[in-house]
């Protein structure tokens, strides 16, 4: 091989090397570090909601459930009837932003702040659907009653609402016991 061809060959290798180095530098420059997705550190609910909204907007949507729980904990520290509205508005914002479906937002709200039990959402008749899984349904309702205690009683100071939810739980337990006994007595 003549020396000129050799030089040209080395030059081509050098160009490849430079291109590869530039590409790798460029690639490493593009790879941003993942967002921290840390929870709100403040005790003020409004500030905490602003923080959570910013985090959700910057790629932390997968942490929605944890953020919601953080917000509930913060609200427990400053209970007031107005908290219901604050949480409702936050959930409406979440649906507007496409982070939650309307159904999910309703479930998040009603589980904590409504007397009605989302655990009872079913379109099939009691004899065929609810009775065969009555124990499971009652267990789910019991857990939800705990969430309602948090949302209605500890966060919103809605004693009457929680008292009614507790009573409704007992009524459902009684009526389902009777209905399911009647269903199975065919």
């Amino acid at each position, binding site marked *: 091989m003549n020396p000129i061809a050799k030089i040209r060959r080395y030059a081509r290798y050098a160009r490849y090397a430079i291109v590869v180095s530039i590409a790798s530098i460029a690639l490493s420059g593009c790879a941003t570090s993942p967002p921290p997705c840390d929870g709100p550190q403040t005790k003020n609910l409004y500030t905490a909601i602003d923080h959570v909204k910013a985090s959700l907007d910057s790629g932390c949507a997968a942490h929605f459930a944890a953020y919601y729980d953080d917000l509930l904990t913060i609200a427990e520290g400053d209970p007031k009837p107005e908290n219901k509205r604050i949480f409702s508005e936050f959930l409406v914002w979440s649906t507007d932003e496409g982070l939650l479906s309307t159904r999910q937002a309703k479930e998040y*709200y009603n589980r904590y702040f409504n007397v009605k039990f989302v655990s009872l959402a*079913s379109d099939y008749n009691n004899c065929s659907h609810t009775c065969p899984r009555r124990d499971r349904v009652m267990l789910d309702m019991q857990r939800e009653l705990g969430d309602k205690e948090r949302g209605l009683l500890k966060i919103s100071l809605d004693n009457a609402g929680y*008292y009614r939810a507790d009573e409704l739980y007992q*009524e459902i337990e009684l009526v*389902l016991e009777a*209905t399911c006994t*009647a269903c199975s007595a065919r």
Partner: protein
Amino acid sequence: MNVLSPVLRLDSAGAWRPVGLILTLPLPALVQAQSSDGAPTIRLFPTTVVEDLRQTSSVAREMETGLQEVIGRLDQQQQLYNESKCDGAESDPGCQRLAKQIGATYLEMLGIMEERLPDMEHTVNNTRLSLEKRLRSELGNKMSSWTLQESLLGSNSSGTKPPAPTMRGRSGMRLSERFRQYYQLVASSASNSDQSLAVLASDIYLDMDETSELIARTREEIARATLIEQLNQSFGTITPEMMEIVGGVKSILFGDEADYVQVAGPPPGSFEEEYRSPLEN
């Protein structure tokens, strides 16, 4: 409005003839086709159920009246036996005579129960079966768990609610009084909404179910207890089982006040206008 309805009886020629009039109480649950909030009315208390309840109360009262005197006598005899220090002195002729008297009164009690229980069983079973059919149809087959919940809450889910009867576990009450209260609650339920009627029907049904089972078991036991006591009469002894049965009958028929303890619920909160979220169901 109360109305007088004719009572018909099948005569020997096979025709229905009016033999009297009965006062029929208004039953809103039956009369109304729709409740005020537009939801379909639950038809849980047809006239037959109401009449069965009234009859059960009356049969229970008759049985209580018959047993009250005998049980009172048994108590007195037992007291005399204890005061005479007959425990441990069973061979004493006086004590033997007392024991025989107690045994005879006990047999009398069993006899009254044996005579009255079939009527009681019949009316209780009638009520239970009618309610069972209604519950299955109205709450079991026509409703989902969600519609049942909505029906129990009525149009008002904001937290306030008119006081509803709390019935379960009322062991400290006379049987007849319990059925009389059931009857009154159902018959005068002009202000009762569907939600409390569903709870009431469930409560009565479960109570009837238990009572029915208890009556059946008691009837089985009576024959056995009668035989044993007839044998005991020959020996003039009082068995612990005998006193246990008397105690059981007393608590079933006349109640046990000590068992009727209510625990207060949390205080209701303020009834101010509540915030309603657009997300609420």
